[in-house]
């Protein structure tokens, strides 16, 4: 239960950090909050030769309103965003409260959770549901990776080994839209067995737009795109939501493990999707 030896660097700038990543490539690992990486080191499931600890880079712990949403620096902690979201961003706050426990969120970063890409994690699903993106920097430049292209598979993203996520961009809810966020876990703070993030906007009593991201249901979080398209233009009734959820759950290929069977996960995904859509349309209708 002790990490294998590694070479430790704590660069003081992004340039210095990406130069280290360029030099060491896949032998290096970025260390942010350490709440996923240090357990991997302790179990020796990861044995990087080089650790690039970004915690001493000044100016990366910001959360600000920008690009019609939030710009979140790579060192903004989950707890920090949770506090920020207490005032007027209940969707974010609810999702964050499901991430581990307060002591985990003290250190864990938003960017780290997204980079880690656990298929049962809340924040990747939130990013996908809100059509967010990340800014990735390497020694050869910077690019923006949209959430839809980011999550490739279990613990695998489109971010290259020589790239550092410097910022997470989280757009706000569409005008007048409501949200729903639900998950089933064994205990509060555990990774979800299954979870759903949903957004619904209404126009003249009909669904103008619906978005659903499912997590814990496969190798990566997924958008229920065909169901979203089928929902557009419909009346926001329980029956409409149930039909969409049936369609979405039927296409899922969840893993079976010791926590739950694939069939159970599919069934929970269906139930949670109906409830999350209903909650979202209720909030879209209500005073806020």
């Amino acid at each position, binding site marked *: *239960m*002790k*990490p*294998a*030896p*590694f*070479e*430790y*660097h*704590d660069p003081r700038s992004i340039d210095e950090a990406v130069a280290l990543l360029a030099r060491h490539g896949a032998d290096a690992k970025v*260390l942010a909050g*350490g*709440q996923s990486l*240090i*357990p991997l*080191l*302790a*179990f020796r499931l990861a044995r990087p030769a080089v*650790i690039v*600890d970004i*915690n001493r880079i000044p100016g990366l712990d910001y959360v600000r309103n920008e690009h019609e949403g939030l710009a979140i620096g790579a060192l903004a902690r989950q*707890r920090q965003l949770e506090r920020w979201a207490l005032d007027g961003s209940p969707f974010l706050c609810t999702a964050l409260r499901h991430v*581990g*426990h*307060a*002591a*985990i969120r*003290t*250190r864990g970063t938003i960017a780290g959770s997204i980079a880690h890409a656990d298929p049962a994690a809340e924040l990747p699903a939130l990013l996908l549901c809100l059509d967010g993106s990340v800014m990735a920097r390497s020694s050869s430049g910077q690019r923006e990776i949209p959430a839809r292209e980011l999550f490739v598979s279990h613990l695998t993203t489109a971010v290259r080994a020589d790239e550092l996520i410097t910022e997470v961009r989280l757009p706000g809810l569409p005008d007048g839209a409501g949200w729903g966020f639900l998950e089933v876990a064994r*205990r*509060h*703070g555990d990774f979800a067995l299954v979870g759903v993030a949903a957004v619904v906007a209404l126009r003249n009593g009909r669904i103008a737009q619906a978005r659903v991201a499912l997590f814990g249901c496969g190798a990566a979080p997924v958008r229920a795109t065909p169901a979203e398209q089928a929902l557009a233009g419909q009346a926001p009734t329980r029956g409409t939501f149930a039909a969409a959820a049936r369609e979405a759950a039927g296409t899922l290929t969840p893993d079976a493990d010791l926590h739950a069977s694939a069939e159970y996960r599919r069934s929970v995904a269906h139930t949670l999707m109906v409830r999350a859509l209903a909650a979202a349309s209720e909030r879209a209708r209500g005073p806020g």
Partner: protein
Amino acid sequence: MTHRTVRLHVNGREYERTVEVRKTLADLLREDLDLTGTHLGCEHGVCGACTVLLDGAPARACLMLAVQADGARLLTVEGLADGERLHPLQEAFWTHHGLQCGYCTPGILLTAKAFLDEHPRPTRAEIREMLAGNPSVAAPAISSSSMRS
């Protein structure tokens, strides 16, 4: 690059030690500073026994490298009591039998301290959510003692 010197404040005292960079903060506290009140259960963040306050906020000492704590202010269970006078939480745990084997108690005390600093009048549901991060066979005793005191 395999060793570094770290300087940190623990329970109001300043320490300086040279440690291997792969050493965790929990091992630094226990092995180098002789502060063995910070217990290790799982060593991967799940049990909460090693929880300390890092600049006032609860954090797992097993999930930080000692070098990362350079310059930090820490509070461990040894720093809770004021000399012979127990901290009110320790007093309450004692009075209401809020522990069984006591192994995970240090982490629970610090988690509870940070929680109460932020929520002076918590609800039952908030207490349950707080304790979920420190699974313990004594949890029912703890939640009932914290609700009574």
